[in-house]
């Protein structure tokens, strides 16, 4: 087996050194009736070519986003990732290293984490950021738990514009943790009155902008109302490229900002691995979950970096830790950091402008179709269209049959909510005019072939 360096002769010598005659003697503590004398009933080993063939056949059964006009978003976005990013994250020293517990030989990881934290803090408009969570949705749940630790209150209020999966993850985790969650109904028009939901028992309000329907929300009045009530504002962003063009959540008064960082440096990957961004005001740093990287000096006075404030973490505090997280999204942070390094603030703004321009062009084109209404007053690179009585899931299937991946039906996220004729459509820098024309043409044709339900 090509991955196993020991030869039969090596194994014999090693057994002799140990003083046993067979390897099963080393498994003597396992109950003998449980120790299996044969290999499991699974296929035999394969060489590289055979594995490539087997997995290549499976990959070929998927329609890859790059092979068709593609307009899906809803928390995962297709962006162009520079070649440099993927080359660098495959450097052995990054790919095959561990959590940097021995800082003298892990300064590469530690320095990029420090750079990542700096970038995330700047983008979110916050004072501190951690070294990542699993993804945006788990970061959202952790933010609610953190708000409850800080305020010692037990009720969180979730906006109806929050991604339904984020809301479900938060309800699941916080529900098991014994906290109560009030979720507002789906808010397609961004017209909910969340401020009236803030009470003396409210730990935090959780508001996403751009929201799941694409609307941009003014967080400042919500932040102010929360502050007056002693509650925190948790701002959620699922499209990190939007940081390039929009007033940051921090500048609007958010206390904690969580985001999905996939859009910068990371592929779609069918939903994972992604990278959760987590930032907060510095006065809350000791209540933050996850790893933090900090600056220090070595024995010769040279600048270096270490993991720090670990008294918050499970490997030190065990059942008193702020979170149970250990492994996070290290390599996805690196991809994010490299892509952000190439872009810088100006590049990100330009990238975001292109995204917005493409989405505006698409919205105008779709709005011109009979039976299609764009619902948003404001949006970044994604918006909601109403398909006059048609089932959007059916429309999406028919678009796919015509070779266009046309968006995410709202019913996929919110089944049974009576929003079956709504379609989420995203357009990023990867879309061309031809793509937009293909979607518009296919949508017109599909709407023509199905009767209103």
């Amino acid at each position, binding site marked *: 087996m090509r*991955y196993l*360096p020991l030869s039969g002769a090596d194994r014999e010598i*090693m057994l002799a050194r*140990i003083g046993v005659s067979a390897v099963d003697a080393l498994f003597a*503590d396992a109950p003998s009736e*449980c120790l*299996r004398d044969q290999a*499991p009933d699974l296929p*035999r*080993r394969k060489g590289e070519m055979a*594995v*490539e063939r087997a*997995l290549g056949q*499976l990959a070929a059964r*998927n329609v*890859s986003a790059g092979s068709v006009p593609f307009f*899906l978003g809803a928390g995962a976005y297709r962006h162009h990732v520079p070649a*440099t990013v993927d080359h660098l994250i495959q450097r*052995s*020293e990054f*790919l095959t290293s*561990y959590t*940097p517990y021995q800082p003298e*030989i892990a300064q590469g990881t530690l*320095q990029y984490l420090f750079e990542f*934290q700096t970038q995330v803090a*700047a983008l979110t408009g916050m004072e*501190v950021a951690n070294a990542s969570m699993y993804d*945006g949705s*788990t970061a959202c749940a952790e933010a609610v*738990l953190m708000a409850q630790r800080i305020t010692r209150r037990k009720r969180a209020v979730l906006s109806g514009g929050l991604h339904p999966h984020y809301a479900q*993850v938060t309800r*699941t*985790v916080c529900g*098991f943790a014994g906290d109560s969650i009030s979720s507002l109904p789906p808010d397609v028009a961004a017209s909910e009155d969340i401020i009236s939901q803030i009470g003396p028992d409210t730990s935090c309000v959780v508001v996403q902008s751009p929201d799941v329907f694409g609307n941009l929300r003014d967080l400042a009045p919500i932040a102010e109302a929360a502050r007056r009530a002693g509650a925190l504002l948790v701002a959620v962003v699922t499209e990190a490229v939007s940081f390039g063009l929009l007033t940051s959540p921090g500048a609007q008064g958010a206390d904690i900002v969580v985001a999905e960082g996939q859009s910068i440096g990371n592929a779609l*990957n*069918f939903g*994972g691995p992604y990278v959760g961004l987590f930032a907060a005001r510095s006065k809350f740093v000791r209540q933050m979950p996850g790893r933090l990287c900090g*600056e*220090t000096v*070595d*024995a*010769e006075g040279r600048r*270096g970096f*270490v993991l720090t404030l670990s008294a918050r973490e499970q490997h030190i505090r065990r059942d008193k830790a702020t979170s149970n997280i250990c*492994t996070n*999204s*290290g*390599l996805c942070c690196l991809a994010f950091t490299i892509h952000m*390094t*190439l872009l810088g603030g100006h*590049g990100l703004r*330009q990238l975001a402008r292109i995204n917005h321009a493409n989405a*505006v*062009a698409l*919205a105008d084109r779709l709005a011109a179709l009979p039976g299609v209404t764009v619902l948003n*007053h404001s949006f*970044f690179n994604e918006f909601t269209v109403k398909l006059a009585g048609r089932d959007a899931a059916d429309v999406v*299937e028919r678009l796919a049959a015509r070779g266009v*991946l046309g968006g995410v039906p709202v019913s996929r996220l919110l089944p049974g909510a009576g929003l079956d004729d709504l379609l989420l459509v995203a357009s990023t820098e990867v879309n061309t005019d031809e793509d937009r024309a293909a979607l518009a043409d296919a949508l017109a044709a599909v709407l023509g072939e199905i009767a209103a339900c």
Partner: protein
Amino acid sequence: MLNRQGRPTIAAGDSPASAAEHYTFTGNRALQQIEPLLFEIGSTERCGVDLDEPAPFTARLGALEAAAPVDLPALSEPETMRHFVRLSQKNYGIDTGMFPLGSCTMKHNPRLNERMARLPGFADVHPLQPVATVQGALAVMDQLAHWLLTLTGMPAVALSPKAGAHGELLGLMAIKAAIAARGEGETRNVVLVPESAHGTNPATAALLGFRVKSVPARDDGAVHLDDVVSLLGPDVAAIMLTNPNTCGLFEPQIVEIAAALHAAGGYFYCDGANFNAIVGKVRPGDLGVDAMHINLHKTFSTPHGGGGPGAGPVVLSELLAPFAPVPFVRKGADGQLTLVEQAGEGEAARAFGRLTAFHGQMGMYVRALSFMLSHGGEGLRQASEDAVLSANYVRASLADLLTAPFGDRPCMHEALFDDAWLKDTGLTTLDIAKALIDEGFHPMTVYFPLVVHGAMLIEPTESESKVSLDLFIAAMRDLAMAAKRGDAGRFTGAPRHAPLRRLDETRAARQPVLRWTRPQPVA
């Protein structure tokens, strides 16, 4: 001594002789390059991506357009390349050398897995595409599930957790949901956790509102049936037991402990971090396990990547399977695979909810499946045997110089030593670890498990050749003898040959500097 950036490179008090010996104008030392933060070398005038100006458009951003770009410098592409390559050269990886970090399972990461995960049919697929367009992705999940179920002898698996600790959450949530369904939600609220457990175990239990009770550590490193039985009662929801345990031992009474727990109405959560020792040899399902997470980044070698991403699928017993969260894959009557995404209805009627936005770590599923297909069933079994053999070879080869807390009994995939052999040397476990760095090895896990004083936990994995093991053993023996003859200088100043000397962690925690800030102009 100041470097180009005006930063001191040598601490005050260092002798002039040594300063002169190490002097270079730049502060660099050949391949060891000082690399500033990207913010110190970048500028907001540069960009490493060429982006065209969009066609004229009317913004629809409401009043929320930022007045100015985010204040973050950029680097051009060649500068970016050099910056991150130089950073990488300050890191130690498995590809650099032996990385015997106990409990962490730093085994070879085949590049075939990377190539497979980057196939556009896997990497460039959106999680919410129509299921007819992602049948291959769902087939990967289905096949991975089949391998995991066969290897564990369990009836169900929930794939979505993003790491081991996330899997622990899933397992304990399923247990909590099952207990609530039995009507015992108010009364069964204790989770038993051995003192030797990973920190994530008590942290997970506490997060979910369980009371954590410790099972004491014993002289032989095992969890004793008597100790567990004495804690059992109508308030015990579960035990979280690592097997093989964190001392590197197969729990001898695990079957009896599971039976006693079940008889008392509790569930057996197995921390599967060490599953790599027994793949193809012992099926956790045969031991009475109700839930166990499997760290794909450990046992099945999806890389650790400097601390993630990982993946932590959880195998579940018949009793717990109905409570598994969404989403999960099901095969329809027509042979098409589909995703069950809504809790509370249909097959997911009793699902406890959702743990992540999408379907879990597809990138890691592909890598793990590639690893499994490459090994085959017999290869996975051989890998476990080699991992155990190598750990015992290291143990036996160091037993005369180091001290083992539990005598000379065989270990599983990792060899545990304590610091009794350092008594009277004035040296600590940390000193040994830092001296190993100078010898070109990544240190073993130190000071874990907590129940062993000055613990040194050595996990060579199946990936080391005998030549490599022999060099490590020889280096450890040389260090041990140096320590015993009082050659303290080799240790207390170590590491000397790493990019940096020992770092001041106290200072980092006392005056936290967690981000770069633009230097204020001097008035």
